[in-house]
């Protein structure tokens, strides 16, 4: 689904990532883990086009997307959520999801200002679809609430609904469980599995090991900007290099 080939990223003299290569299998849930400062978020930003890679290539279904801006990648089905939740705070919950449906609609400046009939029916369709998505994540009652006033947990659910609006083939989630309490995390785990069951490939960066071990089919471990290990959760748990990186030398 997604292949990273020899990704490197430098900020001035600082090497944030070096020689990262792995595949995210279609229909899988892949976890990217590693200690703080390992380069996980940077890797996400490179994969989604927020930063260009210094070297290497990002391939989506075999197609090189390294040069595409974020909105171009979104159109191809590569969608992400953010660690600190990037909602449109001054808009309502429903409107947030409707922005997510931007790529599923096409009315431009003229059609919108003149309220063309096709624009009106498109608007109706978007609104109905946005409500469906709020149902899917379980917050339909919050539709008219201003997004900036949501709790962190609800905000996370909204962000996922908004990302799902783009009908992603691959959903990248940056620390989805960060800031959630244990019952919210359990709900999140169910939701992520539900998303996978819809045929969406999921890749996530996460610190919560219980969550990762529970839902991931495949893990990639980063340390100091390089790849330390790759394998199933079981293999990673027993990998001596990983244990050293997390717990230090014995």
């Amino acid at each position, binding site marked *: 689904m997604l292949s990273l080939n020899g990704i490197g990223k430098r900020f001035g003299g600082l090497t944030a990532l070096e020689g990262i290569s792995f595949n995210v299998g279609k229909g899988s849930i892949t976890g990217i883990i590693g200690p703080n400062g390992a380069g996980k978020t940077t890797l996400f930003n490179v994969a*989604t086009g*927020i930063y260009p890679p210094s070297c290497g290539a990002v391939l989506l279904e075999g197609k090189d997307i390294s040069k595409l*801006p*974020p*909105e171009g990648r*979104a*159109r191809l089905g590569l*969608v*992400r959520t*953010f660690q600190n939740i*990037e*909602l*449109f*705070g*001054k*808009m309502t919950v429903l*409107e947030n999801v*409707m*922005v*997510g449906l*931007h*790529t599923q*609609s096409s*009315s*431009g*400046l003229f059609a*919108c*200002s*003149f*309220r063309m009939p096709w*624009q009106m029916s*498109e*608007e109706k369709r*978007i609104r109905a679809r946005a409500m469906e998505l709020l149902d899917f994540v379980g917050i339909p009652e919050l539709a008219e609430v201003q997004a900036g006033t949501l709790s962190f947990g609800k905000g996370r659910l909204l962000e996922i609904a*908004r990302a799902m*609006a*783009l009908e992603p083939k691959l959903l990248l989630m940056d620390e989805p469980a960060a800031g959630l309490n244990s019952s919210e995390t359990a709900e999140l785990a169910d939701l992520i599995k539900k998303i996978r069951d819809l045929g969406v490939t999921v890749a996530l960066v996460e610190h919560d090991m219980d969550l990762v071990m529970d839902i991931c089919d495949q893990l990639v471990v980063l340390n100091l900007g390089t790849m330390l290990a790759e394998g199933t959760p079981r293999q990673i748990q027993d990998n001596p290099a990983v244990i050293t990186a997390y717990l230090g030398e014995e």
Partner: protein
Amino acid sequence: MKSDRIKFLVFALVVLLMPLPLSGGYLTNVLIFVGINSVLALGLNLLLGYAGQISLGQAAFFGLGAYGSGVLTTAYGLNPWLAMIAVAVCVALFAFAIGFPVLRLKGHYLAMATLGVGVIVNIAFNETVDLTGGPSGLSGIPNLSIGSLTFDSDLKNYYLVWVFALGMILLSLNLVNSRFGRGLRAIHDSEVAARVMGVNARLMKVQVFTLSAFMSAIMGSLYCHVMTFISPNSFGFHFSVELLTMIVIGGLGSVYGSILGALLLTMLPEMLRTFQDYDIIVYGLLLITMTIYLPGGLVEGIPALFRRLVPAKKVTEGSDA
């Protein structure tokens, strides 16, 4: 949706009936400029209040519209309506062309770049004396006319300007409550997130910048035909700041706020006559006070004040456009 329609109809009715009690007096004349300034403020508000992109050069587009129509109709004797359309299209193309490099900038840098555009255009009005008459202005611009109806009185001009203004206000209301408007507000809240959602932020910013320039140019053309005389002073940096003050006072991100701000700040200079050139200090103070104490502008402030004064009754607040 329906309440928005009714709100607009009530507003349009008030506008259309307004001149009756005034019977063409001085106030009618002032309200012509309220109409022009409303659209100029609205254009800037679409850009700043909705998309979050500042422009300190709006007066330039207004001036280009006015001088374009003025020169084409006096020196070249072109039909004023034809000139208006041709000039507006050219100004829009100009804005589109400079929009791509300029709108890559953010914050102070964007403010400086648009300020620069405004200043350069104003210098051009002053220096191209052969074409524009330079600092002494351009006179003898004809009134607009349709068939035998010539717009030569305050009352006629009032309706001329406000029919255009109402049209643009209606289109703007439609725009902000649509896919395009949501895209703009998303860019304002978080450009990165908007782009990840597939919103083409770069293009949309340029589109709304172009739209605001187009609206300003049309108003510029109307202005020159209403005034029949124009001079560069009306299109300087000072006026760009005035427009900015209008929308900050009225309400950023509100269509009706733009109109309220235009109404207040068009009436205000009449009262500030005694301060003469120092009125810009008053604008500065207003800007500072509003951003500190009432960042939502008067359209948010007045209902909030009302709620505080009448706590028992529930004041229903319409979804703000």
